[in-house]
């Protein structure tokens, strides 16, 4: 069992002062093996904080990030899964599943994680799964109204991944989960 925290679009300090206290108390160091962050932290202080939760931290560049040297995209392998990470402002139309699917094919990953829309989504389709963890602070978005703070925790176990989404709705943390199973020998033949 490998726990991967996926979050992004915190927009600290431009659009939010901090993570919601209820989220902060849940995110405890030492419990998570990897963190993938879609971007728009925006300041180093947030990176330092995430580093304390887990040293294996992966970040892609959002258009407001203070650090301009984060990569545009990133791929990593965790267990049986290949994950792809990208902020998403580069994929137009913003939030469009088919365009995101193209990126997924390009990066050749099972799970693609992108942000930018501040709206949590999780789509299953032929190539795999496309996840948007939303905005961990509930930051203002021109695309989405009434953003609820949210983040995603993936539990990767063999060929199965359970995606837990945590959303702060009216002051309460609500959890939902989605199951994905990867079929063996589908893709990724290294020929």
């Amino acid at each position, binding site marked *: 069992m490998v726990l991967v925290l996926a979050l992004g679009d915190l927009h600290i300090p431009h659009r939010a002062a901090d993570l919601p206290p209820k989220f902060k108390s849940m995110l405890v160091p030492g419990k998570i093996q990897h963190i993938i962050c879609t971007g728009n932290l925006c300041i180093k202080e947030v990176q330092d904080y995430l580093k304390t939760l887990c040293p294996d931290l992966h970040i892609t560049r959002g258009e407001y990030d203070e650090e301009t040297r984060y990569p545009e995209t990133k791929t990593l392998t965790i267990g049986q899964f290949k994950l792809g990470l990208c902020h998403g402002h580069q994929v137009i139309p913003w939030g469009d599943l088919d365009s995101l699917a193209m990126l997924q094919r*390009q990066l050749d990953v099972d799970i693609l994680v992108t942000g930018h829309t501040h709206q949590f989504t999780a789509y299953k389709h*032929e190539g795999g799964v496309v996840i948007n963890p939303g905005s961990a602070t509930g930051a203002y978005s021109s695309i989405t109204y009434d953003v609820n703070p949210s983040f995603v925790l993936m539990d990767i176990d063999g060929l199965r991944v359970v995606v837990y989404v945590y959303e702060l709705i009216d002051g309460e943390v609500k959890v939902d989960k989605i199951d994905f199973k990867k079929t063996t020998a589908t893709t990724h033949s290294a020929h």
Partner: protein
Amino acid sequence: MMLNGAEDEEKWLAEGIAGIQHNAFYMHRALDSNNLREALKYSAQMLSELRTSKLSPHKYYELYMRAFDELRMLEMFFKDESKHGVSVVDLYELVQHAGNILPRLYLLCTVGSVYIKSKEAPVKELLKDLVEMCRGVQHPIRGLFLRSYLAQISRDKLTDIGSDHEGDVDTVMDAVEFVLQNFSEMNKLWVRMQNQEPGRAREKRKKERSELQDLVGKNLHVLGQIERVDLDMYKETVLPRVLEQVVNCKDDLGQYYLMDCIIQVFPDEYHLQTLEALLGACPQLQPTVDIKTVLSRLMDRLSKYAASSTDVLHEFLQVEAFTKLSNTIEKVIEVQVDMPAVGAITLYVSLLMFTLRVHPDRLDYADQVLGACVKKLSNMPKLEDSLATKQVVALLRAPLEKYNDIVTALTLSNYPRVMDHLDNGTNKVMAMVIIESIMKNNTCISTADKVEVLFELIKGLIKDLDGAVDELDEEDFKDEQNSVAKLIHMLYNDEPEEMGKIICIVWKHTMAGGPKRLPFTVPSLVFSALRLVRRLQGQEGDIVGEVVPATPKKIFQLLSQIIEALSAVPSPELALRLYLHCAEAANDCDLEHVAYEFFTQTFVLYEEEIANSKAQLTAIHLIIGALQRMTVFGVENRDTLTHKATGYSARLLKKPDQCRAVYTCSHLFWVDDEDGIRDGERVLLCLKRALRIANAAQQMANVARGSSGPITLFVEILNKYLYFFEKGNQQITAAAIQDLIELINTEMQGDSANPGSDPDVFLASTLRYIQFQKQKGGIMGGKFESIEL
């Protein structure tokens, strides 16, 4: 006589102890054989050892204790008349024949103890007699110990009188009188010690005196323990006499010790009721007395007392404790002209802590204390003493910590005035403390007035203060400004009018921040304003009235100003992003002209200020992404903007960037909404243009580097073809897709690129996708059928 060296002292002490032991031996023999005469002779000789002047108080005490123990035996002997056959009255007479005064008096006191217990004479007379006779010894150390002995042996009797509630009040008065007199005399002796041998012995004297202080203080303890010394007696007799002694002795060591002793020994209830008298002594004390510690301890005790019950609180108001304390502090500061700044401010800190604890609801009291401090600070040059500065910071922190709600502290009118007296560095530190307090307590500042006050307080962070040449560490500066940025999110009111005012006030203050600060503060403010716009969306705000209400249009006007100031820093990239956000917001408000204007500003920035290729590419993505979503534009406006966007895309420096930007533009002509534009032709035009650019890139790579170029571009374009093919763009045929696939295959074969490379993998997954779609069946399957793999 001066004492030279510890060694000598040890020798003398040893000699003294030997002397005592020697005489005690013979005294014991006399006691055993009931020989009074001999007993008196040897005890007198023994006591003569206490006549020494050679010992320090510490050593003298050791000697004294030896003698004390022996005197207990003697006392027991005296008590038992059957042993010596002399009545106590006669004994009292007999011992006065001892040769030297000191032994005589010790013996007298010892007999006196027995006499008192026998009740054969009125206690009053006896005590009076003894306390006055002790005057015969005027040497400080010898006198203090002698009187201490007297106090010791009379203690039991005093306790009896004190607890006898049936007894005559006069008897109690006599007992009190006795103690007061002994106390006065002891104090005089004690003070006299300091005046002996001035010069280099001064410090040593001081130390020695400290060792003896409890002997003097003991008397006060005794007074405190006499049960029948009630509030009235304390008020009328005890306190005035003690204070008189304290003030008149004009000795700083003594005054400090005794004031503190009074405060510790007597109950808080008494202090509260005698506050005027007690405090009245303070300005009369020597200037060198650490009065602030004395007063602090008093206020501390009273605070705790106040917390003990609510009835007590009522008393505080009744006796006007606050006013009295406040006045005393003013007087003390006035009288002690040489008191350094830190002393005065520490007093104010103590008073403020007292006020906050005892009268937490009396903001006027707290403000008064701050006001007094401001007055004091105004009459002084600017604070340079770091200790004093620390105390001012403590003064300012106290209300924050007590109220836990910055808003309350903001109502203290003197608070900002105190802050003005801090040096720039400390001022900023304090401002950060204030912001931290707000963030920690999640306080929301909800009125324009309070925001105004708040920003006055933190002005050190918002702009460069006069004369401030800050060589501030860059990291620290960033932290400061990020704190201010976060703070802006805590300023909020549900009511749009008020929120509009708040935004204006924040801008008023932050615009003076200069180019260094705007990039930090402007984004927060802009998003705060955009949130307000969203709330107002749909509201038709053209109400006729005095106050022009907040409308989206007005806010956009302000936003335009704000972002313009930012771009002038120069900070074009950030400004561009913010303009786009405003355009999107204007779109949602159905304000076509406003949205168009924001796009214009965006493009101007792009053309004139953004030169870096990477920055340009990101900017293009943002522009296309935003424009793609616009619904408010009429055909003309939309065409103009799209034309510009595609133009920029085609003119990016690097070919791959160009290619990608151009095919992204295809989405400008196809929106998947019901009323969305669906211009199949122009989509295809874009894609074909992208193909041409990809080809050109390919050729350039061949020529320039002898290698193949970015084949992956072709695969990307293929995917775009598929996208629009699926969406039902008639202009994109299966045949075209077929051709493209073949083209790619050709390029790949011709390329010495290794299998498993990125384009290869991408193509593979794309082909897999096509296969998957074919197998879907239905309409989709039908579409894909004609594509052969």
